[in-house]
């Protein structure tokens, strides 16, 4: 009888130890950034195709319907991180591209005034829809929204492709835009 009780006490302690080791870390691989990469596609003389990141200049990047500006004027980048709306299943971004910026400096002693010209603004739209999944990670850590089954509803760039249909914090490109 004593041996049995000792045996079960041992099992009990092992299981308590096991349960206390249960992983309950504050870890989430999800975020709400849609990664859009701009690429320059060239056909080389030997017939091979060269694909390189294309630095693209934007006058503004906004979310339509919310008046949110995610990037400020005269931004030059080959990748944009566009945060989708965590409270909706669809987000539409307007990206106003420009060819270049021209600075005019007027000497008006004692003040020097710079006039900046944004040449040839071209508005484009990227509209995506997605499914949101909700999870409480831990009580102290909070909760996450993960975004799945991403679909490109509208892309007004001449050539683009959906590469990855979920959003991840591991810098995975979702949409590639080709020039």
């Amino acid at each position: 009888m004593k041996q049995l009780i000792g045996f079960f006490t041992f099992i009990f302690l092992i299981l308590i130890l096991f349960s206390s080791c249960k992983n309950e870390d504050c870890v989430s691989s999800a975020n709400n950034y849609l990664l859009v990469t701009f690429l320059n596609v060239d056909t080389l003389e030997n017939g091979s195709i060269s694909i390189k990141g294309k630095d693209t200049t934007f006058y503004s990047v906004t979310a339509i319907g919310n008046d949110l500006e995610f990037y400020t004027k005269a931004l030059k980048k080959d990748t944009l991180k566009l945060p989708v709306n965590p409270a909706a299943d669809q987000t539409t971004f307007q990206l106003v591209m420009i060819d270049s910026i021209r600075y005019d400096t007027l000497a008006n002693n004692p003040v020097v005034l710079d006039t900046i010209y944004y040449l040839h603004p071209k508005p484009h739209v990227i509209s995506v829809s997605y499914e949101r999944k909700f999870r409480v990670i831990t009580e102290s850590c909070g909760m996450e929204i993960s975004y799945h089954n991403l679909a490109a509803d509208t892309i007004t760039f001449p050539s683009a492709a959906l590469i990855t249909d979920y959003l991840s914090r591991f810098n995975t490109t979702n949409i590639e835009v080709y020039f």
Partner: protein
Amino acid sequence: MRYIFSIMMLLSSVFATAQISRYAPSAVRVGVDPGTFLYQIFSQKRNFFEVEGDMDIDNFFLVADLGISSITIDEPTFRYENNGTYRRFGVDVNLMKNDPDLNVAFFGFRHGHANFNDNLDFDTRAVIQSNTKWPNTTETTSNNQARANWFELNTGLRIRIVKQLYLGFTVRYKLFLSVKGTEDLKPYYIPGFGKNIGTSAAGFNYYISYRLPFRKKIVYTDTKNDKTAVEKSKVKP
């Protein structure tokens, strides 16, 4: 020939009588987990009530657990609620089948099933790893009539304290959890299973039980010749 047939009939009827007397249920035991009262006193988050019953069949027990559970996690940026019922059915094998006090040390298995609803209200600015430039809104998501199934390996003790009253515990290793009927919200908690972190979990219950015997249980003290060497248990019906 006629005598041989008569002797065979007599032996078979004796054997059949012995089988019935041995494997017919001798008692049921009904218990509750007193942890429910501790939770009601000390915990604002969790409430549960669990009833356990088993039927004593030789050195086996048919076991059924029924419970109701609710949990509320109220944090500054989110509120999670879960309400449901659960049940477990299974078989235990008594390792102390010849104990005259009918104490029980057992191994067994269960199949667990839970039905539950849960609901999550949260502020969108509180979502981790997210851009907070979007205006904060309060969102709600829920599951209605979700279901979960799992299996358990169990071990435990039931020790007779006085007369037909027993105290004991059950240690549970729960595994192969599957959840169905959910939509966009992953349940944080499964009634009867615990936190839905992985497909396995450990659990523990205390029980206070009362044994209701149908008849005196025969305890076989000589396993080599158990048809002849028997004694009645000390526990009177």
